[in-house]
């Protein structure tokens, strides 16, 4: 039990002393999470809308693929992205292997099915008369979708939260694609894995606290956003 108490003491000391290593790692993690969540939601939410509102050939297959993709093992995705971004791979010319951009690509692939599947479910939960009413009042398809999104805003905020949660907690793909390069691609999760392997339990715990704090702050911010919407006229 002593090592646990020592670890917590060390973690608090690192956090309150403003340790450069901890904050550099947190910064990389935050940067990767923000970009990956943005791109995953920018692609996934419209995909979810299309799956929920359009009737097209192969829609059921597409839904099955998206739902299956929810269970993609992160290391497998990491391996595939590694293959694509490696020097001999089709995207090797980008030079993104062992960069934070490479981790963003892998995280987008992992979070996109979450954004698509959950937003499809969110849109399907909206009364279909809302979209029909918008269309019959002369709204374009785009404007009608915005009206539906407004109706499903609470569920869509939950979609963003879930995508962010997937990205910020991801370790396997980030380790394979990013390479855990100090100050460059070392995220909070990969740094925790490394520190634990090296027996530096206090440092690992400090990083774990930061990770939890980041997740907590983002969730508080998103809940505040939901709360503000709730107070307005529904």
């Amino acid at each position: 039990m002593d090592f646990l108490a020592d670890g917590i003491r060390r973690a608090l000391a690192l956090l309150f002393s403003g340790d450069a290593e901890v904050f550099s790692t947190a910064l990389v993690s935050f940067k990767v999470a923000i970009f990956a969540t943005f791109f995953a939601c920018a692609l996934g939410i419209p995909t979810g809308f299309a799956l929920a509102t359009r009737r097209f050939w192969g829609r059921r297959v597409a839904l099955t693929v998206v739902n299956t993709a929810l269970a993609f093992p992160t290391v497998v995705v990491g391996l595939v992205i590694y293959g694509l971004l490696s020097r001999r791979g089709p995207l090797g010319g980008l030079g993104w292997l062992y960069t934070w951009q490479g981790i963003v690509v892998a995280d987008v692939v992992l979070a996109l099915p979450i954004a698509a599947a959950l937003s499809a479910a969110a849109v399907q939960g909206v009364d279909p008369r809302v979209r029909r009413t918008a269309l019959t009042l002369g709204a374009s398809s785009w404007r009608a979708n915005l009206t539906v999104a407004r109706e499903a805003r609470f569920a869509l905020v939950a979609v963003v939260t879930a995508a962010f949660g997937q990205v910020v907690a991801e370790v396997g793909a980030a380790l394979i694609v990013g390479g855990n390069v100090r100050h460059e691609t070392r995220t909070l999760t990969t740094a925790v894995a490394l520190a634990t392997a090296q027996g530096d339990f206090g440092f690992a715990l400090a990083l774990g606290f930061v990770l939890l704090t980041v997740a907590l702050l983002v969730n508080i911010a998103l809940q505040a956003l939901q709360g503000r919407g709730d107070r307005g006229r529904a």
Partner: protein
Amino acid sequence: MGALELRQVRHRYDGRLVLDLPSFAVPDGGKVAIVGHNGSGKSTLLRLLALLERPTEGQVLLDGVVANVQSRRRVTLVEQRPVMLPGTVRDNLAYGLAARGSRGTEVTRAVGATAERHGLSPLLDRGRHELSEGEIQRVAVARALALKPDVLLLDEPTSSADRAAAQSLFSALQSELDERRMTVCLASHQLEDAYRWADDIRALAEGRLSPVTPENLFRVDVPPGPGDVTKRVRVGPLEIAVMTERSGPAILAVPAEDVLVSSTPVVSSARNVFTGKLTRITQHRGAVHVTADMGIELVAAVTPEAVRELGLAPGATVVFAFKAAAVRVF
């Protein structure tokens, strides 16, 4: 202009045929009512006419031209149990105007005028949770009329309204029609509304147009057997004698004009004779509709003279008689 037409339309949901209309037209400026039971296809038909769904087979034409997404802006549907879009009544009245490109003061002026006209001014700043069902329906009609559509489609517009509210809705529609040309197509299961208001009534049953007037339509299960033998078909507690080759699920129609009304049973060739209580008497363009409760509600069309001579009044005992050959099964 605002003439809508369906040509060779067949519409399916998950492979199930829900609408089969070789031809259906609503003339420019017409006031058409579509009547039928719940599930007869009225709402589906209105959604096709509103260009919100594309028919599985066939075409929808607006003013003789195959309609496209752009045509949708000329046609507005008020759904049965309409929904309020997010925001206040004011936001809802403004929604379609803004979607059509109107801006700022133009929208504000139009919203104010519409609210004034439909008595909605006190409700302008209310959200949807602060409105009753009847108020939502009024807002939905006003929201549609604010756009001055060429064609207005109304699905059961009086379903959440009491008689006074229904009267006020029809008055508002009429005053709009007095000012400008507009085609109106209304779906209802209430024949009284249709007869009082529309100048053309079509009956829909199981997704097809009924060949007879819309009263006395029933879903039945016809027993098997040859067509030259009288079959007895159960409709609620009654057994109605029919002559038909059909068997299985079908629609049974008793034309109101073919029902003979008397105050006591008379000896005749009619195979169907039922006794019941007269529930109401309504005027329909010269004819009088006498409705009686025979275990099911049956309607007979008679002349005003017959009503006077027989002393018909609500509560009286009446006998309805009609021939098996008069009953249509389709």
